Structures are given as C-alpha cells and as structure tokens.
C-alpha cells in the first residue's frame, strides 16, 4: 500500500511513439512490447481454443464423428502446447512487461532490446509449432504427432518430421522464456525506484521474480531433454532408445523436472494479480505480505523436487514414491497459505464485485477445488487408479484455468482502463464472467465422474456408458469457447473508446502504477519516484 504525497508533474512526452510498423517491429518500449505479448496470447488463445472445441465436438458422441484418431491426438498435443507456451506464458509476460516497470518506478525494462528479441522469437516459434501440426498433411510429411505435450519416447522417436519442427519450436520458446526471465530479474534487482526495497515491492512483482527464477532453473533442463531427443532421432545416439541401451524413463524425469514447476510458472503470476485485485475491492491492506513472499519461495523450492508424482505408474521403488507423495502433499501448505491470505484479506472488507473481483472470488473457489483433487492424485494407491483417466484432465483444467487463465482475465479487466484510458463495459464484462465460469464448470465438472468411472484420456472413442456426461461436457465446451468472442468484443470496444478512466481507476487501488495518468505516457517514470 502506498501513499502519494505529491501529484506527479513528470512524464511529459517529449516525443511520441514512432509511427507505422517500425513502432512494433523495432520497439524497445515496455508498454508496446507488453501489448504485443497480450495480442499474441489472445490470438493463440483462439487457436488453442479452436483445437479444444474440435476435440470436444468429436467427443460429443461415442464413435468417430469428425476426426481421424491420429489427427485427434495431434490436436490434443497442439492444444496443450499452444495454450501453455503460446497463450498463458506470453499473456503473463505481457502483464509483466506492462506492469513491473510501472509498479517499481522504473522507466522501462532493464534490457529493452533483449525485450524486443524475447517477443519476436515467439511468432517464429509459433510458426514452427503450427508447421509441426500441418506438415503431416503434405506428401512426404510423415506421421502426425500423437504423443501429447509430454513427447514421451519411444513414440516421439517414431513420429515423422513434424516432431523435429516441434522440438525446434520448443527450443525457440525456451530461448524466449529464458531471455524474458533474465530481463525481468535484472529489472527487479537493478531498476527499482530509490528507497523501494524488495520487501516493499507489490506481490505481483514478487510472483514474477520467483517465476523468472523458476524458469531459469527448469527451462534449460527441458532444452537439454529435447536436444537429446533430437540426437536420438537423427544422430544415432541412444539416450532414450532401449534398443541402444538407453532408457525412455529418463526422458520422463527430464520432462517432468521442467513440467511440474511449469505449473507454478503458469499459476504464480495470476496469484500476483489476485494480490493486487483483492485488496483494491475489499478496501483493506493485503493480509500476510511476508507469509505470501515466503510461500512463493517455498513453492519454488518444493515444486522443483516433487516432479515424479506424474510418473507413479512407471514402477519406482516404494521409498521413491513415498518421498514424492509426501513432498507433493507438503506443497499444498504454502499454496493453501496463499489462498487463506487472500480470504483473510477479504474478511470484513468493504467488498464490491466488479468483474476483476468476481474473477478473483471464483478463482479462489475453483482453484481450491482443483487443489483438492490434486491431493487425491498425489496419493500413490489412488493415483494408480486415476492415472491417465479423464479425472486427471478435470483436475488440471480446474487448476490451470482458474489458477492461470482466469487470473489473467482478471488482470486484463483490472488494468485495461489503465492501459487504454477508457473504462470497459462493466455490464458486458459481468455477462462474460458468468457465461465463462458456467461454461467452464459444465465442461470440466462432469469429467471427474467420467474419469472415476474409468474413461481414459487421450483416446478418440469411448464406451457408450460415458455418453451423457460427455454430451454435457461438450455442450459446456462450446459455451465456454464461444464466450471468448465476447471477451474480444469487450477489449476492442474498450480500446476504441468508453468512459474516460481516472489515474487511480479503482477507488481502493494503491501502488505506484496508479500515480500515473491513464493511459500512462509513452515514457513513464523518467524521473524516478522517491519511496520513503
């Protein structure tokens, strides 16, 4: 919480942004790059969403309706990769680019040219990702990627050239993530306003500091893993090829050493958004700042040493599975602490329910539900039954949609007036919220029952006994998917105009970013604010 003692008189624009394509291609401005990240993420959200709707359309009834089995598996793979690497991570990076410099009183990111590079690698990576999807449709293109996003060998060693495109795409995405993480860490360490120590930073900035370190620690391991996969495919090595003395399970360990912390990479920035939103609309200071910081750091360290709970069924020793089970359950303590801190912030607050707050409350409820099913899955004997069932699909969508995507939506609604200078249409936004949340629950809640009844995931056909719940899920998915067109409309409408937003936008908002006008000038904080 901050108190402004003087109105800002700085930030007069001596020159405006460059004009035309140059502004975007050559941009070193954190706001423009943040905007590009967010637009890119929105495009990818629609692509990933379209693939999800195709998957659910196919699963509306048993038997084969629209898709061939290989294409179905390809869509499952691409849906996950697009959503994780193309939509959620760039959207979170977009928020980071926009908000971190404004929140810490920095004139820009520490390394603006590298910031430009981090972004412009992404479209190239997305192109490679798309090519991996379409290449099999051309003569000589080989087989489709049917591995799922986990790319497990030996299947990934047998797929055609589309897998090479995918590996290259992952390399590019990894480079982009590492460069962006370096930039964020350096910005937070070196560019804070004079007088702002680490324990005075907004929690959103803290979440990104932890996330960036997490990315630095785990993305290179994935890069190493997929490079070994590439070597096995083309250069005669046998890292994962059992016939040559390799071990396919080794890849699983490498992948999940990245894959599990990746869940926290996706969730933490959204939890940082909640730490901004909830105090604003509860009109109370954030409860337990220090414990939130401690929880995040604990999540980072514990999250890195529990990866093998994704692989209970591979036949690990009893000691190993016991360790991973206990570690996984322990991680629910810091995660639960974060949730309870947010609830305590709301406790006896003068709450109002504008769209960002509606999302915040919904996130706490639905994410907690996903967390509870996570504890079920952490328990080894139970997981032996649930493994690779639709229950797992329901679980991680309850974690990742509320925990990551809805948090980003909340952040977009919260900061959109600051970015554009216009208020969004609150009535439409609330309609979007309700359709979105109802559609989400209709889609994924029945999948718990399907999984418990024995329906496996990643398979195009199913037993006729699963029909009704699948129909409900598919109808929900169509409602959920189409609701995002309304989001697009609201965003475009807000950019084009609307009621002018004040500098503070929200009555209860506190922090440096609200000291600047809405929209902030092209160059902001050219004179650093002094924090006392």
């Amino acid at each position, binding site marked *: 919480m901050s108190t402004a003692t003087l109105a800002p008189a700085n930030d007069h624009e001596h020159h405006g942004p460059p004009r035309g394509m140059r502004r975007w291609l050559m941009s070193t401005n954190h706001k423009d790059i943040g905007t590009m990240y967010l637009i890119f993420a929105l495009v990818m959200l629609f692509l990933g969403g379209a693939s999800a709707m195709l998957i659910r359309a196919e699963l509306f009834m048993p038997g084969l309706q629209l898709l061939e089995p290989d294409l179905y598996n390809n869509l499952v793979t691409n849906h996950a990769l697009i959503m994780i690497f193309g939509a959620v991570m760039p959207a979170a990076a977009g928020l980071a680019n926009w908000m971190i410099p404004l929140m810490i009183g920095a004139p820009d990111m520490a390394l603006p040219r590298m910031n430009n590079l981090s972004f412009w690698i992404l479209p190239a990576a997305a192109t490679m990702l798309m090519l991996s999807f379409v290449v099999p449709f051309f003569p000589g293109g080989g087989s489709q990627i049917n591995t799922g996003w986990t790319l497990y060998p030996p299947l990934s060693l047998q797929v055609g050239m589309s897998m090479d495109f995918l590996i290259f795409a992952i390399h590019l995405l990894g480079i982009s993530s590492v460069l962006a993480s370096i930039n964020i860490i350096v910005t937070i360490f070196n560019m804070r306003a004079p007088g702002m120590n680490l324990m005075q930073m907004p929690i959103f900035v803290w979440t990104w500091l932890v996330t960036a370190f997490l990315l630095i620690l785990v993305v*290179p391991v994935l890069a190493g893993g997929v490079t070994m996969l590439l070597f096995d495919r083309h250069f005669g*090595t046998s890292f994962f090829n059992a016939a040559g003395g390799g071990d396919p399970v080794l890849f699983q360990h490498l992948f999940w050493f990245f894959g599990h912390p990746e869940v926290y990479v996706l969730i933490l920035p959204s939890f940082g958004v909640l730490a901004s939103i909830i105090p604003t609309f509860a009109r109370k200071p954030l409860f337990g700042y220090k414990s939130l910081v401690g929880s995040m750091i604990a999540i980072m360290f514990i999250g890195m040493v529990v990866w093998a709970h994704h692989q209970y069924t591979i036949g690990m020793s009893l000691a190993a599975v016991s360790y991973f089970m206990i570690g996984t359950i322990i991680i629910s303590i810091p995660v639960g602490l974060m949730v309870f801190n947010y609830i305590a912030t709301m406790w006896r607050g003068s709450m109002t329910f504008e769209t960002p707050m509606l999302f915040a409350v919904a996130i706490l409820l639905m994410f907690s539900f996903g967390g509870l099913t996570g504890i079920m899955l952490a328990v080894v004997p139970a997981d032996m039954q649930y493994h690779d069932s639709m229950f797992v699909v329901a679980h991680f969508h309850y974690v990742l949609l509320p925990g990551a995507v809805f948090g980003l939506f909340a952040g977009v609604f919260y900061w959109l007036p600051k970015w554009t200078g216009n208020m969004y249409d609150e009535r439409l936004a609330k309609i979007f919220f309700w359709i979105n949340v109802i559609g989400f629950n209709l889609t994924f809640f029945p999948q718990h029952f399907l999984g418990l009844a024995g329906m496996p995931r990643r398979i195009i056909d199913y037993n006729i006994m699963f029909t009704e719940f699948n129909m409900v899920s598919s109808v929900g998915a169509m409602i959920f998917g189409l609701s995002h067109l309304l989001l697009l409309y609201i965003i475009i409408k807000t950019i084009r105009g609307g009621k002018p937003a004040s500098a503070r936008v929200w009555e209860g908002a506190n922090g440096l970013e609200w000291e600047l006008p809405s929209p902030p000038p092209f160059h902001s904080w050219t*004179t650093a604010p002094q924090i006392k």
Partner: protein
Amino acid sequence: MNRTIEMSNDKQHAGIQPRTANDIERHKRNIRTAWAIGLFALLVMLTSIPFWQGLYRIATSAN
C-alpha cells in the same frame, strides 16, 4: 507495508533525460547481471546429470 512516494515537481526533470554517469553505470550493471544469470541458465542445461550420463554412454558404446 506503508510507503510514501515523492516525485519531483521540477519540470526540468521531466521527459527524456540525457544519459548521466549514473545511467551508464546502471546500464553496465544490468548487462553484467544479465550475463551472470544467462551463464547460470547455461550451466543448468549443461550440468543436467543425465545429459552427461548420456554423453558418457555414447562415448563408451561407440563402435
């Protein structure tokens, strides 16, 4: 956490500022920190134990 923000009212300090010795020193510090983190990331990749384990296996099983 309570903090007070003070900003200069002096309009000479507004807008784009010429680079000062402090700015140049900060820029150098930024680059140094970035290199340190980048090299650390490289170290993480190269020292992934199975990576070296695999390399050893290639070296010893080569015909």
